[in-house]
Every structure is written in structure tokens, then in C-alpha cells.
């Protein structure tokens, strides 16, 4: 088992948005300023969630429809202070040979993230390299950067226009260009819901500028405090025909985790 991730962050920042009660501020006209404002209001809206815990089922399917299922749990602690991102603890329940495997991630904005892996058979905590941005996460169609590079400051934004998705949702289309090193992408197209500010879709363009992956986020629910979470994410690789589906159980925001739950010494607490 290699390194793991924190799709919760992906949900919480990419997909997070203002509470619906928040009045829609007037967006600036300049495409870069407007793009940043759209991403920022999405990011800012998630402030104050504290900590959360969620169980996920990850279903990996190849072109022929053969499936592999992984079950995991992700705990998240909200970022504190400038320069830092959220902290996430990902623990695997299945397949059974990797039960207890865990990844701790401390995200940073400008510096590289810190990551520790727990190998349950050896009871070993190992600090691992976080430079593997574009590599696949546990054999899935998610790359590490899809799951960890979600902080506002990691991209440059440009507003491209307002569109309507197939299901009728009105979205702001924003060009997101990675500012961090070693990205496997030249650019992303991010589609933010104009009504609830959620990310509805992300298109990923490879180093050759070719659209090769699409992420769709559906089944949104609003939790007390105005925090929105997608409960289904579908990543499709257009080159291989493979898909990875992440299905979430309800999020638990009352679990009241503290920073001690996000230290290397807590990796074996399973």
C-alpha cells in the first residue's frame, strides 16, 4: 500500500460553498479577479466546520466493468493560520489485507505537504515523500494532487463564462492553473454552482493540453452551519475508460476531534 489521501478536503474546498443564507456579493468584472472571487467564496464558506469524520466507499472499475472496492474513513481538522492547509487522517477498512493502513497529511499552501504512512503489520509509522503529485492514489483514477492540492492559494484563477450543465444547473466556469510544482496538469476547468457555490464538475487537462479526466460531484446535502458536502464523486479517465466512484455516508461534524488526533502518534489509533 502506498500513500493515501483526503478526498474530504477535495469535497470541502473544491466543492464547498457559501451557506445558502449568505447574500451573493457582486463579483468583479475582470476575469482573473472574478475567477478568484468565485473560488474564494467557495473556500471561505466552509470556514468554521472545525472537524469532521466520514466513511467512504471507493469503487474502481476498469473498461470492462470489473470492480474493486475499498472502504475508508477520513477525519479532517480545519486549517489554522496562514500558510497551512487542513489536516486529514485517512484509514482503510478494506480490502482486508490493508485494514488499518493509514495516511496522515498536513497540507501547506506554498511548501510541500507533510505525509506519514502507517503500516499496520509492522506497526510502523513512516514519513513519506509528498512529491508524488501526479501519481495514482491506491490504484484509483484520483491523483494525489486531486485530493490534496485543494487549497485556494495553489491555483491561479480566470473566469471563463457562465454555462448550464446537462441537468440544468447553472455554473460559473473557471480556469484553474496549478501554481505548485510537479503537477500532472496544465490546467483545470472548474464548474461552480451559481446558486449554492458548490463545485459541480472539474475537467483535467494533461501536460499535452488534452482533456483526459472529468470529475463530477453530485448528491449534495447541506449540514447544520451551512456546510455543503457532495456524497458522490465520479472520476472518469477518458483515455483508459476507467472510473472511480466515491460514495460517502453522512458526514459527522460533531465528532469533535482535536490536533492530537492528527499527529503521527495517532496513526495507530484504530
Amino acid at each position: 500500500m502506498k500513500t493515501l489521501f483526503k478526498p474530504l478536503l477535495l469535497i470541502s474546498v473544491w466543492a464547498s460553498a457559501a451557506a445558502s443564507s449568505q447574500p451573493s456579493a457582486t463579483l468583479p468584472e475582470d476575469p482573473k479577479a472574478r475567477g478568484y472571487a468565485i473560488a474564494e467564496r467557495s473556500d471561505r464558506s466552509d470556514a468554521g466546520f472545525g472537524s469532521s469524520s466520514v466513511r467512504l466507499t471507493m469503487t474502481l472499475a476498469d473498461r470492462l466493468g470489473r470492480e474493486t472496492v475499498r472502504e475508508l474513513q477520513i477525519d479532517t481538522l480545519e486549517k489554522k493560520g496562514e500558510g497551512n492547509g487542513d489536516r486529514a487522517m485517512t484509514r482503510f477498512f478494506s480490502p482486508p489485507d490493508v485494514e488499518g493502513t493509514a495516511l496522515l497529511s498536513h497540507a501547506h499552501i506554498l511548501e510541500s505537504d507533510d505525509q506519514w504512512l502507517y503500516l499496520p503489520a509492522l506497526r510502523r509509522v513512516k514519513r513519506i515523500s509528498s512529491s508524488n503529485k501526479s501519481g495514482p492514489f491506491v490504484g484509483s483514477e484520483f491523483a494525489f494532487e486531486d485530493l490534496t492540492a485543494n487549497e485556494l492559494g495553489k491555483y491561479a484563477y480566470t473566469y471563463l463564462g457562465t454555462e448550464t450543465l446537462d441537468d440544468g444547473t447553472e455554473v460559473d466556469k473557471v480556469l484553474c492553473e496549478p501554481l505548485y510544482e510537479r503537477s500532472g496538469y496544465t490546467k483545470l476547468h472548474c464548474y461552480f454552482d451559481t446558486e449554492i457555490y458548490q463545485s459541480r464538475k472539474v475537467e483535467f487537462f494533461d501536460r499535452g493540453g488534452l482533456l483526459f479526466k472529468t470529475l463530477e460531484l453530485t448528491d449534495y446535502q447541506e449540514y447544520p452551519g451551512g456546510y455543503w458536502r457532495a456524497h458522490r464523486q465520479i472520476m472518469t479517465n477518458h483515455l483508459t475508460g476507467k472510473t472511480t466512484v466515491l460514495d460517502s455516508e453522512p458526514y459527522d461534524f460533531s465528532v469533535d476531534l482535536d490536533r492530537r488526533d492528527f499527529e503521527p502518534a495517532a496513526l495507530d489509533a484504530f
Partner: protein
Amino acid sequence: MVAVAASSYARGGTRITPEIALEARWFPDDPQFEQQFDGLQAGVIFSGDLRWRSDDRASRIRFEPYLRLDSQDTQRSYFDIREASWTHRRGDWEVLAGVGQVFWGVAESRNVVDIINQFDSVEDFDQEEKLGQPMLRLGRRFDRGTLEAYYLPYFREQRLPGEEGRLRVDPFVQTGNPEFERNGDEWAGDIALRYAATMDRFDIGLHGFHGTSREALFVPDLEGERFTTLYQQRSQIGVDIQYTSGPWLLKAEGVAADVSGDRFLSSVYGFEYTFFGVAGSPLDIGVIVEHFYDDRDSTESPITLFQDDVFLGVRMTPNDVYDTELLVGGFLDTETSAVIASMELTRRVTHSTLLELELRYFNDNGGALVTFLDNDSNALVRLTHYF
């Protein structure tokens, strides 16, 4: 997997995962010593995990029994409790009581600072399997790291291959009736203290230990028909450091020890460099280079295969859905050019079945230290099924 109340495990709950493994180990060469079996060694292992966590996550219980039955070597048929521990955390404090396993260190091939548990030498000689260690541990978390104090009331004797077994010294080692320097028995008790911290790109561990050495001194009996074991007093301090930057992991472990008045240094240092996404594929290739040094007088100390050795290893991870991993590596003794090489492949073949293949190759090249292993190159296949 039996996931009782699995959906609530976000908080607390119970998980039980029994497992059964079947294995076959094949020794192509004739045995070197009389009494040793020839050819195939079959085994079956019954094991599994029970985990419980309280709803507030403050308390945890873990239980892992382990039963191995072997077709050739009676010493390799045994039962052990790998873990039976209760852990409770309150704020910055954590206590663990029961039988547990502890890993210290940063190196890949061998960890000179890893002293809490006795290694299970009948499973394998690579020091990755450990016997459960009775312990009381008190931990205090600080913002930078964790301080842990250990009391280990009972000593676990090494488990070694029997007279019929392969991968043994000659004459064989008679276990079950060891001598102890301290108190004369296994209840003398050990103490240890460790501080582990993260400072930016550094992960640092410091420790001290006083108690009984985990390494046995082999003492020939009067007839020269067998060895018996003597466990000496040991005090040590040690440090382990890893520096992580980009694809580089730089590592060092060192111990200064006093074993029954004999003082020595033992160390391992090296690096691990990973080529991520080789040639645009999902394949990662990691290169591991480590060097050991141990300045003990080999004529008066427990058998140490690692006196002045180099380990070279390559780890290949295709990042597929089967979590395939291939590790190829070898120890080279720089003084005698003796070689211990191995290949380990793990791959999941169904959702609940894991396949492991291991090849071990020994060649003493005239060096004395691994001569007793010279005919024991072997291949192992193991299938583990989880319920």
C-alpha cells in the same frame, strides 16, 4: 471481514477480521546438518484481528492471536499472542496496558534501535515478525512530539528453529531453558524511554533502554551437541533520524550499548530515493542503499550477520488496484563478500486473498558468518485469506 456495526465505526464499534494462511517453503539444496529436513516445509497459520473502539474514541482494545502449525519443525509450531492491549487517551496523555508491538526506526533493511519486542526468528530471519511483549506504556504528547515511558515486566525468549529445522546454526539451539544474567529469570523487568518528534523535514527519535538484551548468546553444552542461550544485561541509548525532501529520504540510526560490560556502537544509515511515475506510467521505483556497522568483537557476542555490510534494494510499486509490490534486495558483507539476497512479491488475487512470494538466496563466498545458511536458499509461497 466481519464488520460489526461497521457503519458506526466512524465513532466506535467492533471489527473482527480472522485470517487463515497456507504456505509452502521449498529448499532445493540438501541440508547441511544431520537431522535437518530436506525439501518441502508446509505450514498453516490461523490469525486475525479484533478491534474495539469506544464511541468517544478515547479507549481502544486490540487482540491478535497467532497460531502456526508446521509440517517439519516442531519449534515452528507454536501459539503466540501478538497483541492484547488496552489503550486509553485523555487529552495529552495516553496509557497502554497489555501485550503489544512497538516499532522504532527509520531504515528499511534492519533497525538497530528497535528493541522493545523480541523478534520472531522462527518466522523469518528478516526481523519483521515480532513476539507480543507485555508492557505498560505511558505517553505524553507535546506540540512537537511524544514522550513515552515503558515498563516491560516479562522477557520473551527468542523462538528459534529446532534441530530438524533449516536456517539454523549447528549444533542447534535448545530453547525453553535460557539463562539470565539479571535476577536469573525472565521477570527482571526492563524500562525504556523514548521521545519522537517532527521538526520541519526532520523526524527524530531518541531513546534509552535498560534491561535484558533481546539477542541471545549461544553457549555450547559440555557434549557439544547443542547450544543453550544466555541473555545478558543491556543498557543503551540511541537515535534515529529521517530527513524527507522531495523524492529523497535520508536515514540514520545509531545505538551506543553496554552488554554485560562490553561496550559497542551499532548503526545503519542510508537513503531511499523514489522515481515516481517512471516513463509516464503509474510505476514507482524506489532505490534503497543502506550501510551497517557494528564494532562488537564477534568472538564474544551473539551472532550478528551485520558487522560491516551494505544493503542494496529496489522496490517496485505499479500502483495498481491489487496493491502489487515487489522488493528485491541483498546484503553484501564487505569483508567476506558473503551475500544474502531476497525477493518479495505481494499481490492481492481476490478482494479477500493475498498472495506472497519470497525467494531467499545465501552464499557465504567463504565467509564464516553465514556458512551455516549456505545450503538454505529457499522459495516460499503463501496465500492468506481474510474472513
